[in-house]
């Protein structure tokens, strides 16, 4: 019988992380739920694969000239981190403040943006919006380098309000114009040369040149502006200070965090949590970490209603399977193929489909993507040579007492060790029937790749192919 503590902790780690092996789960269980929430929300040394090792073996991840190597670089980080919330919050902001490689042709700067999400993504929302507005990848992505005091480009100003903070319907067209005016002169260093290089995808003569923020006072419109009812000679910082005071901003942010970390659909119970998160937003002075703490401690989040209430995003699915299998712990050929696989599932890192990010939830699942997902997870989790799978085999043997598992135990224990994953009676019955075909499993004296181990691999493959495995 799986304890509720174990199920709840696994639930937390699917949302604030990428799921957990049984070893990880036990470490977090020792902290207790409250301790685990704090550990996740306060990332310490992520202990991820060191950059020097990555750069030594992967020249493409050192130079970051092209997209595949750059996406793979982030994959390594997700796979090897011991602070998974840091990567999840970066993924959240990458989806919300969606910035894509295709227009920029500058992966180092895009990855610098992801670093900024790690550094500031759990902190103060006002500071985060300020960093975002100074982020050179965002500036070029939304044309703020073309936003001049003498000729306003509204693109960034509009998306800042519509997609990044308040949401449509909470401001006027005049507010958009005034917002854009306030961000005139916010550009990147050597903007003209860098935008030519980006437009031409120029790598000449000596590869990419990364970007940094530059403020050009002479290009800034310092005139009086009226924004959301307030008037002054506003610069970008003033505009952000006004944005974060709005209730619509609190609702927008709370809802997006809820949908990413708690449930794809907002029910009545979810709506109550969102209100609590909005209250925390204001009482904490716009602290994102505090909003998430409120959510993780809510009765709704801990309830059965929130369990398996999200479809895993491809990044969660792929990284979770690799972490469970214990693969790619050192630099290795083939990591680009893994990140390409995510693209085929509909989520290429650093290449969101548009500024609106990815459409999540059930939209992750179409027949082609589902096949890719099932094939990937099944292959990853059925390889009995993988360290994580070996650990599962060892645990199965240890839990059986005499080394022998009856078919229902084999199915139940595999579901437990890959999650615990809750499945329908129908799904469980399929798994048990499958296990029964070869009778009891005797793991006594098992050897690498022998028939007994292969039976475990096959059962893990089947679990990975269930619809329940696709849910977080």
């Amino acid at each position, binding site marked *: 019988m799986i304890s509720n503590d174990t199920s709840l902790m696994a639930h937390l780690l699917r949302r604030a992380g990428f799921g957990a092996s049984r070893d990880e789960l036990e470490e977090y269980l020792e902290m207790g739920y409250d301790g685990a929430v704090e550990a996740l929300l306060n990332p310490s040394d992520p202990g991820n694969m060191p950059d020097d090792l990555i750069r030594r073996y992967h020249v493409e991840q050192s130079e970051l000239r092209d997209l595949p190597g750059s996406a793979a670089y982030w994959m390594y980080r997700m796979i090897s981190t011991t602070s998974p919330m840091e990567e999840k919050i970066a993924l959240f902001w990458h989806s919300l403040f969606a910035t894509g490689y295709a227009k920029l042709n500058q992966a180092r700067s895009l990855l610098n943006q992801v670093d900024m999400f790690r550094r500031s993504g759990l902190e103060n929302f006002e500071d985060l919006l300020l960093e975002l507005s100074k982020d050179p990848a965002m500036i070029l992505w939304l044309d703020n380098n073309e936003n001049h005091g003498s000729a306003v480009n509204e693109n960034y100003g509009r998306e800042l309000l519509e997609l990044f903070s308040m949401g449509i319907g909470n401001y006027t067209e005049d507010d958009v114009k005034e917002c854009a005016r306030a961000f005139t002169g916010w550009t990147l260093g050597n903007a003209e040369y860098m935008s030519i*290089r980006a437009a031409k995808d120029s790598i000449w003569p*000596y590869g990419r040149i990364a970007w940094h923020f530059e403020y050009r006072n002479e290009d800034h419109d310092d005139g009086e502006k009226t924004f959301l009812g307030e008037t002054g000679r506003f610069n970008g910082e003033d505009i952000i200070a006004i944005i974060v005071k709005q209730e619509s901003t609190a609702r927008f942010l709370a809802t997006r965090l809820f949908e990413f970390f708690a449930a794809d659909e907002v029910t009545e119970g979810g709506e109550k949590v969102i209100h609590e998160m909005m209250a925390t937003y204001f009482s904490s002075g716009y602290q994102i970490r505090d909003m998430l703490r409120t959510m993780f401690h809510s009765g709704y989040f801990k309830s059965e209603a929130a369990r398996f209430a999200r479809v895993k995003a491809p990044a969660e699915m792929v990284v979770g399977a690799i972490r469970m299998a214990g693969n790619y712990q050192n630099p290795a050929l083939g990591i*680009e193929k893994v990140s390409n696989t995510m693209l085929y599932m509909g989520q290429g890192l650093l290449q969101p489909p548009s500024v609106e990010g990815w459409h999540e939830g059930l939209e992750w699942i179409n027949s082609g993507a589902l096949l890719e997902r099932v094939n990937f997870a099944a292959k990853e989790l059925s390889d009995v040579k993988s360290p994580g799978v070996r650990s599962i085999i060892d645990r199965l043997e240890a839990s059986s007492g005499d080394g022998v598992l009856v078919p229902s135990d084999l199915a139940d224990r595999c579901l437990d060790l890959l999650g615990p994953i809750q499945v329908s009676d129908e799904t469980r019955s399929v798994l048990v029937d499958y296990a029964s075909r070869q009778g009891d499993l005797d793991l006594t004296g098992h050897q690498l790749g022998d028939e007994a181990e292969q039976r475990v691999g096959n059962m893990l493959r089947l679990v990975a192919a269930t619809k329940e495995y696709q849910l977080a």
Partner: protein
Amino acid sequence: MSTQTQSPSIALDYVKTIGIVNNGLNGRGFANPYDTAVDGDGRIFVLNRCDPARASAIRVGICSLEEEYLGEFGRGNGAGVGQFVWVVAMALASKDRLFITDEYNHRVTVYETSGDYLSHWGVAGSGDGELSGPAGIAIDSSGDVIVVDQHNARIQKFTEDGKFIAAWGSFGSGEGQFNLPWGVAVDGDDNIYVADWRNDRIQKFSNDGEFLASYGESGYGNGQLQRPTGVAVDSEGFIYVADWGNERVQVLGSDGGFQLLLRGEATISKWAEDYFASNPEEKAERDLSNLKPDLPSHLNTPYHVSSQTEPYFWGPVSVTLDQVGRLYVTETNRHRIQVFQKR
């Protein structure tokens, strides 16, 4: 740009930059170069590691100091005869031969400088003569081949046809121990210098493996190192170190004392001039740009500074000396070689 001690006994003048990124599968330019060798005729051999997108064209390119493109050779990506996966380093031997290490295939491949494949030797393992991730390679005065056996944390010496002679070292940070060692060089007295990469130091050994000295420690200051990848020693005993993690080159005296450091000062190569001749609008904006900008504090690490500062070294992975005192610094991430001349 160079920083010197108050009275360095060596001076290096910047000469020029050779190279341009090669985005295709052949022709002039470089593709993530990892090492350079220069023969007595001044021919410059450049070992192109190549990223996965261009792995089918892993090759040695040949050019002159004047950037005349002289050709290239290789047999593509894989474990077949003459093929490579992860090339690391290269050493010129007598009879116009190049010995090339491949840390993925765990072997040394020998080509003639004309491009004809000759042989390969080495098998994966940890026994005498077996290799695990061979990295740096050098030839001593008697023609023996010194190979950095990276994952076995040791140095091995072979005859030129791959027969095992000797091995020394183990994993660790003590004297004579290694942590993922990379480059290697031999001085005029046949002493052996190893870039002990993850121990942030250079170790010096006699030709038969007796530990003699250790130079450097972890850090960012003068004489301190971050992941040194390459080493070279000139006829006066000056030690040139590719201080890769610090994105710079340092020159140490024969006693290991700091002499000077180079940060890089690349200029437009001949091949780059050709590119800009046909892209004048890009050149016009470039000329108006500040390519050595001040950066915000969160980007103020050597790697980030180099990613944004085109003249500086970025991925300076190897240092090579020719017979007339020129220093060639190979930059993986910038696909070029900066050349300096000892005054």
